Structure formats: C-alpha cells, structure tokens
C-alpha cells in the first residue's frame, strides 16, 4: 500500500532528557523518523523537552516544541495543532507511556488523533505483564514461571512455590528501574517494595530466574501487510541475569546453530504478528545452552537502544523504516537506503562481527555499587566492527575511553585467587578484565566458565588473546606475529608494551612490514550487491574499499560514548560541524564509535569511519584520507585529548591552535595569560606534591577548590574547607606527581555566569550570557542555567562582554569557546576558559537562533564572521526567558550521593521557556521529572552554615501554605522566626523518624544540606538516598530550593486576589 493520504499532520513525541536507560538512541531514531515523514510530504510537529538534540532543530520538523513531556503540555499542543496522527513508538518508553496516558485521558479521541504504526492495544499487550503472559500462553510460547505481584506478601507466596533465585521486574519502567535478581529473603524485602514504588502502576513481575541462559535478542520489523523480517539478532556475551544494556553484546549471534537461530526467529515473528506490531520491535529470548529449550523474556513494541545498535551494526535504518511503515508503506515498497538497488524487505547479511561494550559512570561515582544485574547502570555504549571476535572486542575495549588500550586491568596483574573468583562470579563493569586476569593467572577456561557462565566460545578467544601476548613477548614483533596481532585487534600501544619497543619503534616496524588497515564497507548484504554507502570500518585485510575522491576533505572527530560530563550536546555540535563543512564545499569525514548517535548515521557525513577514537585508529584514517585538516573542538574532551598527538604527527589542526588550547588548560600558562590580559581570577596554584598542595592552600586560604588538571566534567573536583579534608582528598581522589599536577584555587562564593562565544581571531560574537541559579561551586552542568540573565547589573554584564572579547582575542580563539565567570563582591573573576564546544551550545543555539557550531566551523575553515554578517559583541536578548535544567539518574545508581557539588552528576538536560522566569522554571522543573505539588509539607535538614540563609526560604514556604517539618536544631531556629514547625526525630530516634516520614510520603519536598561529604554512612546521605528511592524531590542547594519556591509562589498568586500577590512578588524579588 502506498502512503496514507487520509492524514496530513503528524505529531511525533520525543524521549526527553538523557537518563540511564534512555540515551542518544532516541535522538537518532526521532531525527530519522521526522525526516522520513517530511520526505513523504507530511507536516511534522515535534515535541521533546531535550534541547541538546538534532531532533529539536527547527529543520528536523515543521514545528518543534521544546516543552515538558507531560500529558498537560502535550494535550495543549494537540489542541493548538490538531494533528491527524500521533507517532509514539520512536520516543522510547517516555513516548510510549505518554501516548497511553493521552489515549486513556480521551484527548486522542476527542481531537480525532490516530495512533500511527503499532496500535495502543498492541503496546499494552506487550507492556502489561499479565496480558503479555496470556498472549504467550495462547501462542504456546514459553515464558519463565512468574506471577504479577502488587505486594510483598504476594512475592513471598510466589517464592514459597517456586524457590530462589527469582527476578523482580517493575512494570512500565525504563531500563528496569527498581528491579533486581533476588537470592534470599533479605533481598526480597528490599527489592520488591522498591520495584513496586518504581512502577507507575504499582505492579511487578516476579519470575523464576533463568540466569546463565544465553540471552539473545531479535530486532524485528513488521508492516501493515503482515510482512515481517528480522533485521538483526544479537547475542549477549554476558548470559541472562545482567540487563542487556549493561551486557557486552555481539551481532550477529555467534554460538547459535541454524536450527536455534530459526527457532527463535520463528518465535519472534510469530509474536510480533500476534501483537500486530507495525514498525520496529525488539524480542528478548533466553536459550538454554544445553538444550533447545528457550523462553521469551520480553518484547519492546518500539524502537529501542537495541534497534539503534542493530541499525548501526547492519546499516539497516530501523527508525526510518518504522516511520515509513507508520505512514502506510509496506516493506517491499521501500528502497534499502544502503544499497539503493534492493528493497527493505530483506534480512541484512553481515560479513563482520560487531561488539558493543557499555560505558558506565563508575569513574565518576566512586561510592556507587558497581554490581550489574537487572537494573541498567550504563550511561552509554561503544560499538566496534571487526572481521573476527578478538578484533572487534579489542577495538571496542579501546573505544570505551576508560584509559584502556587492551584487556588489561588498570590495577595491574596478580590479583589474589579468591578475589578473582568473587569478581568473576558476581559481575560488575570490569568483569571482562577480570576474565583476562584470571587467564593470565592460570585459571582454566572451564573454571572461568563455571564462575561466569560466559559461553566457552567467547572465553576461548579471550584465552587466545592472552596466550598470544606471551608469544609476542617471547618472540618479539616478527612480521608474521605483527600481522597476526593486528588482525587480532591488538593496538600498537599494547604491542609496544609486550615487546621492548617504544610506541614509535612499533609504528615504524609495522610501517616497514607494510602492515596497515584497509577500510571495508558496511553494506547490509555481505557484498552481494553493489552499494555506495559511505560507511566503513577498518580491518587488516587485502582489499581497500574506501576510495578517495578528488574533493578536499575535512575530518571531524566525534565524542565517543555518552557519559556524565560528555553528553549528547557534543554529538549535536559534531553533526552541525559536518553540515557546515559540506555547505562550505568540502567533503566531511567523521570518525566516531558511539552507535546511539545521529553523527554515526551514515546519511549525515560524506564518509563515516566507525572506529575507536585513539591516536592510532585516527591516524590510520588520516593517512588513508589525507584530509586538509582535522577539527577537534566539537568532540568534547575525547577529541581534544588527541590534539597534541595529532599535531606531533604533523596533522593540520583546524581552529584554535594547540598552543592556545594548552594555554587555556595549563594552570600556569593560563594564569600568565590572564595577567597579561589584566583579567582577574581566583587565586590559585598548581601542586605536584601533597606538601605543596597544603602550602598553597594555607597561603590562599580555605575554602579551596581542588581538582586534577585536564579533566572532564569536574571529575574528582571538590571544595575543601580545611587542611585535614585536603589531606584526605589528596590521598583518596588523586595521584599527584610531576606528570599529574593538582590545581588548587580559592573558592569564591557568588553568582556563576557562563558565556559561549565564537571567534575567528578578529570578530568575537557572543550569542548570549547565561546565569546559573546555583552559586559557584555546583558544577555548571548540574546548575540550572537561565538566559537571558535576570539578576546581573548592566555594568557587570559589560565587563563580562569585555572580558570575553579580550579572552577570545588573547587566546586567539578560532571557533568556539566557553567561559565560566563568578561574580564575587561585585567583581567578575574568570573560573575557566574552555577552547572548545560546550554543553550549552545546543541550548543557546536554539534559543538565540544562532547556529553556533555551524558559524564557528565556517569561521574555522575560512569564512570570517564578518563575511557571515556578524560584528563583535553580544547579541540582543530576547523577551522570553529560557532555562536549562539538569536531569539526574540517581534512581538507577544505588549508593551514590545526590548532593550537588563541583563534580558533575547529571546525565541530561531539559529546557523550559516562557514569558517569565518562574514560568520557565516551572516548565523546566516539570520537564526534568520533578513532581511539584502545590501544597503539602517541606522537610528541612540543614547544615549549621546554611541555617541563617534558610530562614527566608522557610518563611516563604510557610506563607504559601506549606507545612514545615524539621529536625530538632533546624526546628528551633525556625521557631525563633515565629514560623510553625513540626519536629521530626533524627534517624533512629522516636518513630516516626526522618526516614519514616520520607517512606510514608509525608514530605513533598526535602531541603537537605546536612553533612555534605563523601561518607555515605552519614545521616544526610541516608536521607537523600531515601528521597531518591521514593521519588521525593530533594534539594541540596539553597539556590535550587529558592527557585522552586519561586515557582510555587507563581501558583499561589494565581489563586489569590490580585492586590495581595502583587505585594508578594515585590518581596520575593528583593
């Protein structure tokens, strides 16, 4: 059937902010879907709260609404836009849940909005455990014994019948939030109540554990004509028991016979036909390694992280075709966009193997529980392509950007046997490294298999890698061994480490042998048909398929896996750079390794190299492509970290010079430069030893801000108030030496200001100045940013603009720069200068309508800002107020302290925009997932230093009708202000204590600044975690709390007489 003509206008729902379990894959899916629908001539309306996406670019849809993804806001847009159709299966679980809510509310029927693609009935049938199980029974498809439970008692009854271990999975949640594997009664009592409260319908599935089975996923598609295909199947290296998002995964499956492959294929297709899926769908199966028994684990009736991975692994664009199917097309009517000569109704054939490794945030959260289970913890992932399993595995390992270049634990060798056994058995993020160490320490394959349940096929290859290391160490780098090693994925650095050669000598040796990679095409068909897809991966084979054109090219380095501190914002900038390069008439080449993103969509660039972002892999591409230059400033710290090595190898870096980048990053050079430019900065110095650090701190005076140099997202950064804390920090958080200095700065309290600017060396354009709600000390990525500034005097603003221009010129910035200032006692100080694209670029680009990455790229490659129509200075500010609100994933990360500080913790962001700051904040906070009840109770637990400041806050909460709860000390102080307050006992005191109050949902908000520190055992920590587990809003910064009160006050005056509220607003603004 050709496309539907009964619909003209389609509303697409995005997935909102990046959180654990829902990352950049939905930007990729949503962007593809919107474009596919636009291509078909539909009017596309998009709603998504996340500004840091390509999806929310004005050009992606006909109209883009960056508004909260709640029923209220979407309903409003439906009323305004009157769409004919709604596409909900491309916005992850968020989009799906929202569509269900809208339908149940009757809005869709009321306005005649049809759900396109997979029907809501099918969605419900797949998502609702009970309905799903009933369907599986009807189809005769096996599911593990299980029960739907609504209480702990029901869970206990089930266990009595089935026995341990069991798995608890809450209904309707992302990434398995709140669930887990349960081995005993104690765990059951903890996990079941958590799971129930995590589920919006207060319902969990409890099922017999089939841990140890092979976990196999099928990515399937079906059209309205009942035609169904498998795009790709994938096998988890980690068997059932670890969330697939936290598992190392290969595609296609490696250890399934054809019989097993077809068995599961048949089931998958049978299921999506029975459900009536129209579009992409994911079916997860568990297969017994010792029989052909299998179980269906679950079905995701939408595009997902796995479908993004499958799309990149095969080249088959699932989201795009899902959109076409939703528009009425059948698979055999759609051209396969890779081959352009065949159709979408076929199943891709791979002639390579893909390995995906998740990227976890544990480098940021040293206290986090790293054990992996049914609740996903990874923030992102990397993919690598190779012709053998070791090659793709080792390429993936060095793509993770965890300083790994090989299967080698960073702590070295020689772990005690007992420790290894524990680590192998209880999987955490480093298990693959412990597997390697176990082989090095003489464990047998069988022993490791027994401990890990990882299939022997994968273990055998890891063992081979380890044995091969020994061979190389013994025989040296002969031509034969070198070729074999490169074909097995060994990095040059690893080879150098195994032999007595330096890295340079190793490179030379390989050069002499003539060993270099060729680039093969990802073409969906294993070379059966000619394709022109510019999508390549490197491998050590004979035939080179990537042909060089005569057009001059520019290489852009991507930003790698999504992680805290380096999110989707950098992929956004990368994509815009690529477009700008193309617009300027060059060929744009990109290297990246993140399968979730838009930048790794092969339709974005002229050539995509899916390769690790290491100097070796990047140089190989450069040597092949010979681009006229490389742009590093849009790929975050990943790309920037390669700049020095690239320059050393004679590569032409486009944009700000290495010398100037270094001057911005190197503390001493930076200080020197700022003195030259006569711009003040907080006192500070670089220490290369603990003693030196203490001396510096004593000299400049506490509190001080300490951090290692060259870090991302404020990693290991801390505010330290006294000498003993400093010593503790130096011992715990950093390795200080000549090569790794530690920066120590005076910590100035005050308003933090963030500026992004574009410069070509002559003209400096400042699109906007942003003000942070939270005072300096909270990482800028975790602060609410406001644009335009609301509370900065004109003269200070002038000074900020002046400093920015001076800094841009002083550092001879070519391209983007980001500066953070603090206003302390009416003086402006520079905190840091980042000579690169920043987190705020998409936010600012969208609200100022200045495509900063595009502008900057063109400025870099030769079109001056003047020629582009700009003059030096700050652009005029708009009427509307916009806020960028951070979003955290604390619910997914047990034992992580949620206190805001200099170290970044958020995973994503949302935007709120309206006519006043309060309205914008309301939208931002709601969009970030905060529930904002307009009445109820506020629980205060404050550190002594904050009590004074908090009284105004307490008064304002009281005045708008909130009941105040507080601990003894805080309550006494509140009472002094003549504000009524209820005393709540400390943890472990008379019942109900603070934890009880939170557990029982008696506090709607918590303001907690108690015992800030890194000791999770403390009460403050327990309160904050309890709040997270129960979804209660917990504010750890007085500034965020104040912003919230502002929003609440907005509601109250709408309920009161005009005269009254007018007075109040004045008071508030004072």
């Amino acid at each position: 059937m050709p496309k539907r003509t009964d619909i003209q206008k389609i509303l697409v729902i995005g997935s909102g902010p990046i959180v654990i379990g829902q990352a950049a894959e939905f930007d990729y899916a949503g962007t593809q879907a919107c474009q596919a629908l636009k291509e078909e001539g539909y009017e596309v309306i998009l709603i998504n709260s996340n500004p840091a996406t390509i999806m929310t670019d004005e050009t992606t849809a006909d109209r883009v609404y960056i508004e909260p993804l709640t029923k209220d806001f979407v309903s409003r847009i439906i009323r305004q836009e009157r769409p004919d159709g709604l596409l909900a299966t491309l916005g992850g679980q968020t989009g799906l849940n929202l569509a269900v809510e809208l339908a149940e509310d009757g809005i869709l029927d009321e306005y005649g909005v049809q759900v396109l693609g997979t029907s809501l009935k099918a969605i419900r049938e797949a998502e609702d455990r009970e309905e799903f199980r009933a369907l599986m029974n009807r189809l005769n498809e096996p599911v593990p014994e299980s029960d739907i439970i609504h209480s702990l008692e029901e869970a206990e009854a089930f266990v009595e019948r089935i026995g341990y271990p069991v798995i608890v999975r809450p209904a309707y949640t992302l990434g398995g939030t709140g669930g887990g594997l349960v081995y005993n009664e104690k765990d059951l009592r903890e996990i079941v109540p958590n799971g129930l409260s995590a589920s919006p319908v207060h319902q969990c599935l409890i099922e017999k554990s089939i841990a140890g089975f092979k976990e196999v996923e099928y990515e399937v598609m079906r059209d309205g004509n009942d035609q169904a295909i498998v795009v790709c199947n994938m096998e988890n290296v980690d068997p059932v028991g670890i969330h697939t998002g936290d598992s190392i995964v290969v595609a296609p499956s490696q250890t399934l016979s054809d019989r097993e492959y077809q068995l599961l294929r048949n089931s998958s297709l049978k299921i999506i036909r029975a459900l009536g899926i129209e579009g992409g769908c994911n079916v997860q199966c568990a297969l017994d390694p010792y029989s052909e028994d299998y179980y269906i684990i679950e079905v995701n009736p939408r595009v997902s992280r796995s479908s993004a991975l499958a799309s990149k692994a095969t080249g088959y664009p699932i989201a795009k075709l899902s959109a076409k199917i939703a528009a009425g097309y059948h698979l055999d009517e759609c051209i396969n966009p890779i081959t352009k000569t065949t159709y979408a109704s076929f199943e891709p054939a791979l002639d390579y193997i893909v390995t995906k490794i998740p990227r976890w945030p544990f480098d940021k959260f040293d206290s986090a529980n790293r054990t992996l289970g049914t609740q996903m913890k990874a923030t992102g992932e990397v993919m690598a392509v190779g012709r053998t399993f070791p090659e793709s595995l080792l390429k993936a390992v060095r793509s993770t950007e965890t300083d790994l270049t090989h299967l080698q634990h960073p702590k070295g060798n020689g772990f005690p046997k007992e420790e290894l056994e524990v680590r192998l058995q209880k999987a955490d993020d480093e298990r693959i490294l412990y597997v390697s160490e176990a082989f090095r320490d003489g464990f047998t394959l069988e022993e490791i298999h027994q401990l890990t349940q990882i299939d022997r096929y994968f273990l055998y290859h890891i063992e081979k890698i380890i044995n091969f290391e020994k061979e190389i160490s013994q025989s040296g780098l002969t031509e034969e061994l070198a070729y074999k090693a490169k074909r097995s994925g060994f990095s040059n650095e690893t080879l150098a480490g195994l032999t007595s050669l330096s890295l340079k000598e190793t490179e030379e040796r390989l050069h002499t042998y003539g060993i270099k990679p060729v680039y093969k095409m990802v073409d969906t068909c294993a070379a059966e048909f000619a394709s022109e897809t510019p999508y390549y991966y490197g491998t050590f084979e004979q035939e080179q398929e990537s042909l060089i054109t005569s057009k001059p090219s520019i290489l852009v380095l991507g930003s790698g896996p999504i992680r805290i501190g380096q999110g989707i914002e950098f992929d956004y900038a990368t994509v815009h750079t690529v477009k700008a390069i193309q617009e300027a008439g060059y060929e744009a080449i990109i290297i990246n390794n993140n399968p979730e993103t838009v930048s790794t969509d092969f339709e974005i660039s002229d050539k995509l190299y899916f390769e690790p972002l290491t100097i070796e892999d990047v140089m190989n591409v450069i040597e092949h492509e010979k681009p006229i230059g490389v742009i590093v400033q849009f790929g975050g710290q990943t790309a920037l970290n390669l700049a020095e090595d690239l320059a050393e190898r004679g590569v032409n870096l486009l944009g700000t010079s290495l010398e100037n980048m270094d001057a911005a990053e190197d503390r001493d050079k930076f200080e020197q430069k700022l003195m030259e430019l006569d711009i003040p900065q907080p006192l500070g110095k670089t220490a290369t030893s603990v003693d030196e650090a203490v001396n510096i701190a004593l000299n400049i005076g506490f509190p001080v801000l300490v951090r290692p140099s060259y870090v991302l997202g404020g990693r290991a950064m801390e505010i330290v108030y006294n000498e003993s804390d400093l010593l503790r920090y130096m011992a715990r958080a950093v390795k200080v030496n000549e090569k790794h200095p530690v920066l120590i700065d005076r910590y100035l309290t005050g308003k933090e200001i963030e500026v992004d600017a574009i410069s070509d060396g002559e003209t400096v354009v400042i699109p906007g100045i942003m003000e942070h709600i939270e005072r300096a000390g909270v990482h800028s990525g975790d602060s609410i940013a406001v644009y335009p500034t609301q509370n900065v005097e004109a003269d200070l603003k002038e000074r900020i603009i002046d400093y920015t221009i001076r800094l841009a010129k002083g550092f001879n910035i070519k391209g983007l720069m980001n500066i953070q200032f603090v206003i302390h006692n009416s003086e402006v100080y520079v905190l840091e200068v980042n000579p690169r694209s920043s987190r705020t670029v998409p936010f600012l680009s969208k609200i100022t309508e200045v495509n900063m990455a595009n502008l900057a790229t063109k400025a870099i490659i030769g079109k001056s800002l003047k020629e582009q129509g700009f003059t030096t200075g700050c652009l005029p500010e708009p009427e509307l107020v916009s806020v960028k609100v951070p979003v955290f994933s604390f619910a997914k990360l047990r034992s992580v302290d949620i206190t805001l500080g200099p170290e970044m913790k958020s995973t994503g962001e949302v935007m709120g925009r309206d006519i006043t700051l309060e309205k914008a904040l309301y939208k931002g906070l709601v969009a970030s997932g905060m529930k904002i009840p307009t009445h109820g109770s506020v629980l205060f637990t404050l550190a002594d230093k904050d009590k004074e400041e908090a009284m105004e806050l307490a008064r304002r909460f009281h005045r708008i009708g909130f009941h105040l709860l507080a601990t003894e000390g805080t309550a006494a102080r509140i009472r002094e202000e003549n504000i009524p307050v209820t005393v709540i006992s400390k943890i472990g005191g008379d019942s109900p204590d603070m934890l009880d109050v939170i557990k029982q949902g008696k506090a709607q908000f918590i303001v907690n600044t108690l015992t800030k520190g890194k000791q999770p055992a403390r009460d403050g920590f327990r309160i904050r975690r309890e709040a997270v587990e129960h979804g209660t809003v917990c504010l750890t910064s007085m500034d965020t709390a104040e912003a919230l009160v502002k929003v609440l006050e907005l509601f109250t005056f709408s309920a009161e007489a005009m005269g009254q509220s007018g007075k109040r607003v004045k008071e508030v603004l004072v």
Partner: protein
Amino acid sequence: MKRQLILENGQTFVGEAIGSDTERAGEVVFNTGMTGYQEILSDPSYCGQIVTLTYPLIGNYGINRDDFESIKPAIHGLIVREAAEYPSHFRSQFSLHEWLKKEDIPGLEGIDTRKLTRMIREHGTLKGRLCSMDANVHEVAEELKETPLPVDQVSRVSTKNQYINPGVKERIVLVDYGVKKGIVKDLVSEGYEVVVVPYSWDADNILALQPDGIVLSNGPGNPADVPEAVETVKNLLGRAPLFGICLGHQLLALASGALTVKMPFGHRGSNHPVKDLRTGQISITSQNHGYTVDPDSIDGTPLDITHINVNDKSIEGVKHQHYPAFSVQYHPEASPGPEDAKGLFNEFKTYVKNSQKASGRKTYA
C-alpha cells in the same frame, strides 16, 4: 600450512590450509548465510563447487550428528575467513577442520573472503582450484579456463536405488536430483509415504508407483544437463500433482517450454525476499541456485509466474495453467535458513487432496 586458491582469471588468494590435503577444482560461489554452514556443506546442490562463506566466523558451533542434508557431502571445497578451532555447542561433535579432513574436503581459511566475493559479484562465478603453494599459477589458471564445468553432477548425487520412507497418508514420489534431507523430512512429517526414486527413472516407472503427488527435488548444476529429466517431467505433467523445488522448478519450466539461463553469480543465502504475486506477501527465503528461468521465455508457455524476487525481479515460482503443477526456485524446507515458505507444502497438500477427489481415489491409512 599455507595453501592457495587459484582462479581462472589468474588471481590468487593465499591462506591457511584446513581440512583435507587433496587438491580440488570447482566453480567458486559464495553464500551469504550467517548460520547453517553444516547444512550448506552437505547440500548436494553444491556438488562440484567450492563455496566461500561471506560470514567470516565459521564453525563456531561445530559439526553435529543431526544437521546434515545428505550422507556424503558433494562440495569440492570450503573457503572461510576464520574456522573456529574451538567450537562451543552442546551438540557439537567435530570441529570444522576435523570434519573436513574426515570427509576429504579441502578448505582454506584466513583470506579476504569479502574481496573474493566482490570479485565474483563483478566477474560472475569463476572456476578455481585449491592448490599447494608450489602450484604454477599460470598453468593452473590456463587449465581451469580450458576445463568446462562438469555436466554429470545430478548423476553423481542422485540415489542409485529407490527407497521408501513409510508413512500413513498419501504416497508421494520424490524424484531425487540431489535431494536435501530437509525436503524428505518435511514430506514425512506430513504423514506421507515418501518413495524416493533415482533421477533417471522415466515417467512410466514413476507412475507405476501410483503416486498421489510427485515432488521434483533440488539438485546441482545446469538443468539443461539432464534432458532426460525434462522428458520425464513432460510425461508426468497432468498425471499427478507436481511440486518442483529449485532444480525441480527449472525442470518443470523446461518441460513446459520455457528456457533457463545462467546467472552471473546466482542466489545463495538465507535472506532472499520473494514476493507471492497472488497475495502480495513477502517471504524471506533460503536459496541456492546458479541458473534461473528466463522471464522472456515464459510468453507462450502454459506457465503463470506466481513468485518473483523482490530485489532482481527474477522468477521465483511458476504454476501450470492446465495441470496441477507448480514450483519454486527457493527452498521451502529451509535447512538452513528461514522457514517462512513452509506453507508451500500445504499448498502441495491441497493439490494432492483435490486430485484425489477428482480421481475418486482414497487412501486408507
């Protein structure tokens, strides 16, 4: 030990020897299936061919007792990127290397199989020889060029004697041109009594068995090489319901007056989309053929085209206008590959039932 593949165009691929040490020549073809190497290795339709598998990692789940498509493999050689030394599967009994050695089949691993595949795609299938390193490339290439492709593959792989697979329902005669076990299995699982007869049996012999239906099996090579089989099919038309699979399909076409032509590199794999023109439905099919029915030769024959390939629009199925006879170019029995087309056996069943009704014959179980 190193070994080389020498092609008729003078190109060579040097890799490691696996399997038997014998030297063997054959037409070099590629298969794009990602699973099912054991079925491919033992599929008689590959008789005389050297198969390169485009999926690079082969032998991962070993070779087991059950998944053979014939007792004696007829393939001349196997080329892979990597042959698993350490198979991992509960059914595995041999590694690929061990089994190839046991069956005296030479193999080659470690070469750029994608380059070879692209070469075949560009130039069409090439004759090649798996040789030791001291072979003279020029001489071997010349010899390959001069040697015509064999014409006797069907006689090599067809059964020498008839045999019966007892069943309780209708009697089906399965003419064996190199039948895969999968076809027998699917017919037997229907409950039919399946009488397998040699390809050389004429129509009278076959009809003497009083079949309720006849299946023309798959088989190797060019259908034009077995004119006697075409003659037989001609004489069978209208005498009992006919169902042709792969080579059987080509024989039905030839018997109905159509022609077959050699394809540049054929269809071999598990992902070929086929459209049923009667329903508009797509099936993903398992295929293995180097010849195809010429679409230009259909006009004027009593054949209707029922199925086409979605990608290259080649003929994938025909139906006789007057007689209960139909055929498909692909493998409804799968093994290996997707089982989307199993419904064709039901279609055949309908033919068999209808024909019984018409003739008033009954089966007594």
